């Protein structure tokens, strides 16, 4: 479980995150949604420890990140998997080497054992025959799947995804969303996804947090999205006509 209490973060005197608090539970997929510039990525990077917060507490299963020394922080980071928006695969390494990298770096395994684990996770993300390919030879969806494989290869306790389906077609997006959700449930991981894709919210969002101008404007479940009158939610979610219709159908105002 990850607990965030009253965090603040700013750059050059401009406050990006203001008093944000949230709880992310194990085995659940939580989504951070909001417009571009609402502070989603900064929030995620604060959770990852890539940005130091100015105020507030971030704790991982009771371990306050700010109180941990550098070595313990590094150890904690071994429990974290991250899927970056642009996949962030190492260009000079093959798919197999990319996925193997965390095991090679942090575990003492034989080549055979490492390969076995790599093949296992690649199979899990449906990429069995791409071991020797380089990232430049992969499609966007395949890169995302390799990034997911690399993120889960060490059996992380916490999985972070920054817009995992940006730039993907709807079919592949759904596939990636479902894959992340299945992995979360299978391994009882705490998963946090940054997204502005409402399809993802509807597919896999068990807990949703809406950020607006750096504040937490709303949180709830995907069902609650349809019933809330929160202005921030309605202006963000129902800016699309499709979702206006979905809401009407969902709440019973229209029958198909």
């Amino acid at each position, binding site marked *: 479980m990850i607990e965030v209490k009253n965090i603040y973060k700013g750059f050059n005197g401009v406050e990006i995150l203001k008093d944000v608090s949230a709880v992310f539970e194990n085995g659940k997929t939580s989504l951070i949604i909001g417009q571009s510039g609402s502070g989603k990525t900064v929030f995620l*990077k604060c959770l*990852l*420890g*890539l940005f130091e917060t100015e105020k507030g507490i971030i704790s991982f299963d009771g371990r306050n990140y700010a109180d941990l020394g550098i070595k313990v*922080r*590094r*150890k*904690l*980071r*071994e429990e*974290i998997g*991250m899927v*970056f*928006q*642009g996949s*962030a*695969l*190492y*260009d*000079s390494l093959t798919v197999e080497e990319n996925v193997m*990298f*965390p095991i*090679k*770096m*942090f575990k003492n395994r034989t080549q055979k054992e490492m390969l076995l684990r790599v093949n296992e996770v690649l199979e899990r993300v449906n990429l069995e025959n791409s071991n020797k390919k380089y990232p430049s030879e992969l499609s966007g969806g395949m890169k995302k799947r390799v990034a997911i494989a690399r993120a889960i290869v060490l059996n992380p306790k916490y999985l*972070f995804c920054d817009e995992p389906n940006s730039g993907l077609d709807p079919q592949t997006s759904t596939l990636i969303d479902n894959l992340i959700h299945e992995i979360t449930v299978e391994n009882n991981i705490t998963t946090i996804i940054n997204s502005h894709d409402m399809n993802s919210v509807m597919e896999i969002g068990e807990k949703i947090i809406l950020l607006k101008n750096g504040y937490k404007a709303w949180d709830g479940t995907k069902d609650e999205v349809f019933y809330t009158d929160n202005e921030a939610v309605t202006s963000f979610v129902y800016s699309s006509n499709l979702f206006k219709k979905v809401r009407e159908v969902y709440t019973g105002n229209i029958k198909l």
Partner: protein
Amino acid sequence: MNYIEHTGKYFVMLKQIFKKPQKWIIFKESLFREMEDIGINSIGITAFISFFVGGVVVIQMALNLENPFIPRYLIGYATRMSLVLEFSPTLMSIILAGKVGSYITSSIGTMRVTEQIDALEVMGVNSLNYLVLPKIIASVIFYPLLVTLGIFLGIYGGMVAGVLTDLISMPDYITGLRTDLDPFHFTYSMIKTVVFAFVIATIPAYHGYYVQGGSLEVGRAGTKAVVWTSVVIIVLNYFLTQMLLS
């Protein structure tokens, strides 16, 4: 950001780099890869430039030393001195700063803007140590070899040019090469090379690692890195020469 701040940040970066590698096997693999990229791939350009510059030095010397009271063997002597003391360690380092420096800045800078460095940090990898230390070690090991190769090929190029153009005879040239041979000149040359190798690996790494923005900024950082590396080499060359030879 002012120069003092950059200098401070550069030394803080060095402190992060010089830590024990997290996994020796990964460090070894990176080191061999860097030796190939930084060292072996620079042999061709070093050999080519050194050979022709050696030839040009001999032709220039021969054409400018027409006084019959000046012995011809001085052409060989002057060629050796200019190649050992200046051309191979300093000029070659500036050329390598262009070739290798831009490679280092662009490779690390691209990793920064495509979040590959963030990916390393999130995993708990000391990204500076992982990315830059192998480059420094590879440079410090390989550049003295490249400079030695440059000296020999320069001298050989000079001999070929001098003899083929009939400006100097082979015995005169060889006599000149052997005149007043001071082994410390080679030591001086190697000391300079090691210092310059360190500069060539670290300044471009600094510019690449702290780049912000996109591909345009990576390109700009590459240019800045080459300029600053060359400036630092020239300044250090002055102080090292003053300290070691005076």
